[in-house]
């Protein structure tokens, strides 16, 4: 088991940023033949795990047992930082979406022993990161085989367009989505998850496997149900897991093991493992 923090300066965002990375090594105390242990290793499957609004790259690692799960399932975990960006090319800010689609994965694959294969790449996240995971998996459905979206803010873009809900009270959302004169301008863009799903279905694209986790008392629950119903109406299935709980780390500690369980189950069903 190795844990690391990468600090680098991606050109796409023009900022210094951080990534927490977990690499399961399978090395245990008293192991001795290290060349044999390490030389026989294959490239690892990798879970891209996205943080929520107001959080950072360290929160999943600090607040949940994700490291224990990575070791158990033998998946690498990459936890990048996205500040308060909704993983968007911000109207007034850095091009985070470009970073997540191009420079980050290229940097990671070219420096670390991680598989580029679709079947070995999974994306998840909670809240802002759940919506980010959905968006990135819909933008690059050929790169991710599974997306597990937790307590996702799937309603944010639609609410912003309508001028209702939390999306209107936070100045950060104006920085992200812009279109201040006519917020409906955000609809039908790469930030609009509903639209992205529709486009994928229209084009007959092979989609990742989707699973949602959301608490019965979570304020994002209604939005998640609405999105699931919309997806099902287009013939896209979303697996569902729920427990009592709110929009907090108590809930996300219940869901992070489910992320690994969903991925593992899908890989077995698809004959990968």
């Amino acid at each position, binding site marked *: 088991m190795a844990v690391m923090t990468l*600090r680098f*300066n991606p050109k796409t965002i023009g900022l210094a940023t951080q990534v927490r990375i977990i690499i399961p*090594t399978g*090395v*245990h105390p008293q*192991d*001795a033949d290290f060349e044999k*242990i390490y030389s026989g290793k294959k490239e690892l499957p990798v879970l891209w795990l996205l943080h929520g609004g107001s959080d950072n790259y360290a929160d999943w690692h600090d607040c949940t047992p994700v490291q224990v799960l990575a070791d158990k399932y033998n998946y690498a975990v990459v936890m990048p930082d996205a500040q308060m960006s909704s993983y968007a090319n911000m109207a007034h800010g850095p091009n985070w979406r470009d970073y997540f689609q191009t420079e980050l994965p290229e940097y990671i694959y070219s*420096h*670390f022993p991680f598989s580029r294969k679709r079947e070995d790449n999974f994306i998840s996240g909670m809240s802002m990161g759940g919506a980010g995971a959905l968006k990135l998996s819909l933008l690059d459905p050929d790169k991710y085989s599974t997306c597990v979206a937790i307590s996702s803010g799937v309603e944010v873009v639609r609410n912003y367009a309508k001028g209702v809900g939390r999306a209107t009270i936070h100045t950060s959302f104006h920085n992200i989505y812009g279109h201040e004169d006519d917020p409906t301008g955000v609809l039908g863009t790469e930030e609009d998850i509903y639209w992205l799903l529709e486009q994928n279905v229209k084009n007959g694209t092979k989609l990742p496997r989707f699973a949602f986790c959301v608490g019965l008392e979570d304020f994002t629950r209604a939005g998640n149900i609405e999105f699931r119903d919309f997806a099902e109406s287009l013939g896209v299935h979303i697996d569902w897991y729920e427990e009592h709980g709110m929009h907090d780390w108590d809930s996300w500690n219940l869901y992070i093991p489910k992320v690994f369980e969903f991925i593992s189950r899908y890989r077995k069903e698809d004959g990968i493992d």
Partner: protein
Amino acid sequence: MALLEMDFRSGALGFHEEVIVSLPDRPATKPYPVLWLFHGANQDCTEWLRLTSIDRYANNRGLAVIMPAMSNGHGQNMVNGTNYWDMVNSELPAAMHYMLPCLSKDRNENYTGGASMGGYVAYKLALNNPDKYCAAGAFGGALDIISILSGTANDGNTGLSPTFAHAFGSADHIRETDGDIIWLASNLVREGKCPRLWSLVGNKDFGYQQVCGAIKKFKAAGCDMTDLYGEGGHSFDLWDKYVENFLDWLDIPKGVN
């Protein structure tokens, strides 16, 4: 330059090994040459990063730098303590080459360096693995290890300090073993396989006489030995000024960025 702060569970140590890695900004389309860089006694893996501009110099040369935590282990399987030799000789390179496939495995692109205790570790690693490392450098290195352990190095110590005793046991315990770096070097010179060696010592370093004695022995053995002497003590105040000199001597092509 990118910085990796990492730790991994070490089988050799039986606990976690902390490592700092400096990666150059240039794309990893061609593997990075690697400098394995060791800190001194009573220091940790942050020493080189904090006390020199190694990060910037290495980036300018497209060089990756691996700075592992060595505790006060002197790169030994300690007589009383931890197996730092197994870690640095075997586990660390295997783990790093696995976790960072962007690092070159080419012998001619792998170098070792270190300060004080780390200078000895750098020589020991390269001289035990001449097929894996092509050059080694020491800043105020504890190089004449047999004399140090015998109390005859004129370094102000007449007896064996506890940290040396725990790591090495005694001079007799080290003589003509993988810890006896001058003996190793003379054997490799005979086989025509000795890595190039570089040394810097300050004229006010308490180990000045010790280093001069070691240089004389490496040269007598026929080593390709570059020895530099600076105005200063056993301190990064001096060593920092020679870091680029050392990197230039390694002959890493400049301007790959």
